[in-house]
């Protein structure tokens, strides 16, 4: 009870040790006979064409940016959620209006993103 983070560190150390042990053990125990064909990337049995690290769809960057925006909104809502019920009475009404304003601003941004087609995956 007194130091929960200490138990967490113990678990972290134990899990990390086990992860290392699993990789290390299979490295020591398993046979290793590499051939050039074995070491080529798998492409359904065909000789691989070009490099895999080519350009990929810009959509993935867009998703990442949208994620950061909306995830931060979630992070802002969490402290609000924890104090909401305990506030009671007039304080609760203030918190409710505050949150409605916040979500209204967020909704404007969301509608803009939708209308600009950022959510289309076509």
């Amino acid at each position, binding site marked *: 009870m007194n*130091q929960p983070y200490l138990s967490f560190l113990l678990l972290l150390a134990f899990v990390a040790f086990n992860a290392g042990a699993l990789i290390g053990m299979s490295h020591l125990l398993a046979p290793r006979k590499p051939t050039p064909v074995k070491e080529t990337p*798998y492409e359904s049995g065909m000789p691989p064409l070009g490099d895999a690290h080519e350009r990929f769809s810009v959509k993935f960057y867009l998703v990442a940016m*949208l994620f950061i925006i909306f995830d931060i909104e979630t992070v802002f809502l969490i402290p609000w959620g924890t104090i909401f*019920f305990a506030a009671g009475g007039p304080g609760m009404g203030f918190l*409710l209006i505050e949150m409605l304003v916040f979500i209204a601003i967020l909704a404007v941004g969301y509608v803009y993103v939708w209308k600009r087609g950022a*959510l289309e995956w076509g």
Partner: protein
Amino acid sequence: MTFFLWTSAIKVVVVFTAVMVGVAFLTWVERRVCAWIQDRLGPNRVGPEGLLQPAADGLKNLFKEETLPASSDKLLFLLAPAMSFVPALLTIAVIPFATPLPTAWGDVPMVVADLPVGFLYILAFASLGVYGVVFAGWSSNNKYALLGGLRSSAQMISYEIAMGMSTVAVLLLAGNVAVSDVIARQQESTWFVFPLALAYFIFIVAAFAETNRVPFDLPEAEGELVAGYHTEYSAMKFSMFYIAEYSNMVTASALMATLFFGGYDIPLTSWDNGPPWTIAKTLATLAMFSLKVGFFLFLYIWVRWTLPRFRYDQLMALGWKVMLPLALGYITVMASAIWLLHARLGWTYDTRFALALFGLNVLLAIPLFFALDRGHLISGSEARGEA
């Protein structure tokens, strides 16, 4: 302090072992249930009813040759399975699985680390799993792996928003992120699945997407991407991705049970809700918790053999155009309802309060499921006539 350290060390080893054995057992259960649903036998040769099959698979994977693609980024390639494995096995730490165990030296809480940050810790560490997937996809230098890794990371972060927002609804009623407080609040009145039924719906959909399970297993859609981000992995490293995926399922099930189904709470009795703690209470609540987690794990497998897979644009449309506005709108409706009942009518939070919210949820659910079922929102571009 020494006592605390010793009990912590024991709990760490016991919980880790329990999760690992549970995951091994789960792979066997999945194959047997799958066989049962498809009316065939499944693995039944190794040990009684095939129970030792996971042990045989584990040993085999330890002694198998590993391939290391010549053009791969060696360091990241080695690091990726560990980056998946470690967060997946850490997330379970904050979930209490039984009432405190009384010993001669004091009560021992049945949770590895009752962190004050509570389930935010789980959301945080579950997101760290994305790194393993991205590293694996990138370092393999394989086109299938890269596409699988990209898809997987985009999917995981998209559904994380809906998941986070559905837990905000839990916070409105629980008032604290500490998992023990969430459970205590549910023991006082009723399980949160009743007053927050739609939040649970959002949560379970997001949890299926987060764990990359059917109907959201696009990252490893074998028809198009071979095996997704772990195409190039073999032997023990492949096994570690597998363990990570299944222990993520275990954590997601445990989180569902804890946030919405009262955790280790035994329903319809208050015998298990307070001290004095006894060993009987610990064992009974542990059994109850295992039963709930087991049910959700069975649900995962059941859904896998019931629903077809989404197409990728449908998946993203569901996440961004349905789940996100639904979660946001749900928070505003719930907050307004709680304000009306608590601040205006002066109700305190009890079973009556919860049932009033449950009625509201049912009223909201009818038009929602009607709208979802009409086939307009998640049908994809072709059905909308845009193709």
